[in-house]
């Protein structure tokens, strides 16, 4: 689960707790109101109290709708990310195949796409920096670009061009 999703879930939980407390308060106000009306009859003071209780009731409903909206957003977000992830993974697979990268080159290119520099890639793959530099140079040549940012831009450009799902 991503940080963003977790943040959103926490937010939904916080508002939910607030809504539950409002519901409690609202029930007590309404019960209290009924009791007062039975004892004292209906007056201006109680009319104001009634309005406050009703406003709280509306707040409960609106709060519930807000939580519903947050949950729906979170799910849409997760679905969109999943679709984009699937699409991007597929696109990367297609391009790498098109450029006829070897397995090692594809591996290095994927790390480069994720933003790793040569030293990091070398450490992750347990190979020498010189080897990685040579592999990257071959990847760039096959893809017709000349830098890591160029490689990233190739994919980003295609994603930006995608119509909104």
């Amino acid at each position: 689960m991503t940080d963003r999703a977790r943040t959103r879930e926490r937010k939904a939980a916080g508002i939910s707790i607030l809504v539950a407390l409002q519901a409690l308060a609202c029930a007590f106000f309404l019960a209290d109101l009924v009791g007062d009306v039975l004892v004292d009859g209906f007056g201006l003071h109680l009319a104001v109290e009634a309005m406050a209780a009703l406003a709280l009731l509306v707040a409960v409903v609106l709060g519930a709708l807000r939580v519903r909206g947050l949950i729906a957003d979170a799910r849409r977000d997760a679905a969109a990310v999943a679709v984009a992830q699937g699409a991007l993974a597929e696109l990367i697979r297609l391009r790498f195949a098109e450029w006829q990268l070897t397995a090692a080159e594809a591996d290095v290119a994927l790390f480069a796409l994720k933003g790793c520099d040569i030293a990091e890639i070398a450490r992750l793959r347990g190979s020498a920096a010189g080897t990685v530099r040579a592999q990257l140079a071959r990847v760039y040549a096959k893809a017709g670009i000349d830098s890591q940012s160029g490689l990233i831009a190739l994919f980003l450009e295609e994603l930006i061009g995608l119509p909104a799902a």
Partner: protein
Amino acid sequence: MTATTANRRRWDPIVRITHWSVAIAVLANAVITEEGSGPHIWVGYALAAILALRLLWGLVGPPEARFSAFWPSPRKALGHLREIRAGKRTAHASHNPLGALMVYAIWGTLLTIIATGIAMAGPPPWDGAERGEGRHVAVAPGHAGERGEDGGEREDGEEGEEGEEGPLGEIHETAANLLYLLILLHLAGVIFETRRNGRQVLVAMAPIGR
């Protein structure tokens, strides 16, 4: 993909908060508060508010929390039983069909308890004043004799106070006992589903944690 399924697997916060609040309120009124006392009635009103929120959520909440997702259906419940017997497992987005029947049974019982409770206690103030009202109702002719006997039979240790409340008290208490039975069945169902389908059932309703 993982994010979507992870979201699906847990109940939303409103469902979890209302579930555990109701559980705490029932436990409090069953074990801690004195029957008919001020705190007992306060907790009862709080439970009513929380249940009302859950029922509202059944109308406006996300799809799996809505009534439409777990409409009570004996046919589906029987189908579910057959699946259990056949050892098959189907994923349910909402409550499973047997669980749905349990949900409505518990809600119906809670509503009965709340309605009779409110009818007996009336609006606040409840500290002392409601006792008078309670007595008032209890003095109403016609039921005094049977009430006294029933109260004496059922509640040996208690003061027999709730026995004096007439038919409402009877219904209140019978429904409460039915509720305890339903809760035991609910727990048995959860344990059964946990053994059949894994800890997911527990995780979905866990109050906190990821």
